[in-house]
């Protein structure tokens, strides 16, 4: 088996290896801190008590399930977020190369932005952004 990597790939790996190592270190350090706090392993005490381990509810006995239904508007916000975040993802490469793309690149992105702005105005008028 002969693995040959192009120069471009080697540069990629060289550049991104520190990122990977850093993420591993962050995980190890965070994990070590968490490990210190775990019951029985860590430094803290571990005393069982029914009142202590019940979920906090202003001193009352907890009633019903905590994983309840929630307002549909949170869902709406999530959907709107996906649309706009995708838009940002589309804009990134254009923004970096705006000096090179010329008139066609400039106008096509302007059209794209205008269409999305119309969508945004529609959402606004429909009241999707209102929160009361």
């Amino acid at each position, binding site marked *: 088996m002969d693995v040959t990597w192009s120069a471009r790939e080697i540069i990629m790996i060289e550049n991104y290896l520190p990122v990977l190592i*850093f993420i591993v270190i962050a995980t190890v350090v965070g994990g070590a801190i968490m490990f210190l706090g775990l019951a029985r392993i860590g430094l803290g005490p571990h005393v069982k008590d029914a009142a202590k381990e019940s979920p906090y509810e202003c001193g009352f006995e907890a009633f019903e399930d905590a994983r309840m239904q929630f307002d549909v508007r949170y869902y709406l*916000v999530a959907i709107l977020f996906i649309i706009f975040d995708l838009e940002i993802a589309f804009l990134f490469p254009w923004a970096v190369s705006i*000096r090179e793309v010329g008139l066609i690149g400039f106008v096509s992105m302007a059209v794209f932005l205008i269409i999305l702005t119309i969508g945004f105005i529609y959402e606004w008028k429909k009241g999707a952004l209102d929160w009361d």
Partner: protein
Amino acid sequence: MLEWAQNFMAAIPPVLLMTVYMFIFVLVLFGCVAYVTLAERKVIGFMQVRIGPNRVGPRGFGQPIADALKLMFKEMILPNDADRFLFRLAPLLSMIPALAAWAVIPFADGWNFADINAGLLYLLAMTSLGIYGVIIAGWASNSKYALLGALRSAAQIVSYEIAMGFALVGVLMASGSLNLGDIVEAQEGNVFTWNWLILFPLFITYLIAGVAETNRAPFDVVEGESEIVAGFHVEYSGMGFALFFLAEYANIILISALTALLFLGGWLSPFPESWSSVPYLGVLLGHGPHMFIAKTCFFIFCFLWFRATFPRYRYDQIMRLGWKVLLPITLIWIFVEGVLLYFELPPWWFD
């Protein structure tokens, strides 16, 4: 195969050295985080004509260490019916991205661990990942307050992420690169060629969105101690709480550092080039990491200042600010900037 093995062996010492450097850096960062918490209590104390913590060590400088030790010896309570695995995973998930983002931050020209050409994209990804910790913590706790806090937090962070992303698009247009070093170098000149002036609306948007992203006052309805006690981390104690706390302050430092890099010229000095030849003082007046750190400290101070000054926003006001004020501002400014750039109008006529 032999050649491959040799190459592999040759790569081990530099990688080990880098690992040691990174480890030291993370420990230093933890130290900074600890002292930002002290700075917060001191600064807010003085703003409210109090002294702040002053018992542990000289002038209270031992306070963060005492706090850390105390948290270490506390029990980490696992609430009834909580998801055992996710409950313990959540603090880690909010801590890791807050640390990992630092891999690409340049402290001075070439002073970073990873000089990648998609630096800003990596940062956007890392700052977005923090939300998973919050929402998993809220769901796994089996507490109504925690779930409400997590939902609020998710919706708020996601809303401000958009304004933040558009502000970043503006920065990319001005600098023409995703590499953080290149972004700083594109601002070279004097104080008025830094991005804060030409991208002023985006600069303000980014700062506000940064405060909202880290769930800091005046956007801290997520914690809202007067209504949902502490929000998503109400059930956490001991080291689990400590990790959330560390992550929050590490994120404050990160957002401050990013604002300094993207809008205030990072390590560039505001003084004229000739001043750096002044004997002795010249080093301090020229470009260098101290400039970057000073600017970062200024923004950290702003975070604390905001908390001491502004009353908390109502939730609908927060959402309105994000969607109906900041988003249109950034959209309009991207249009304006695009036109300016395309027709090579000032300040880009010299490109």
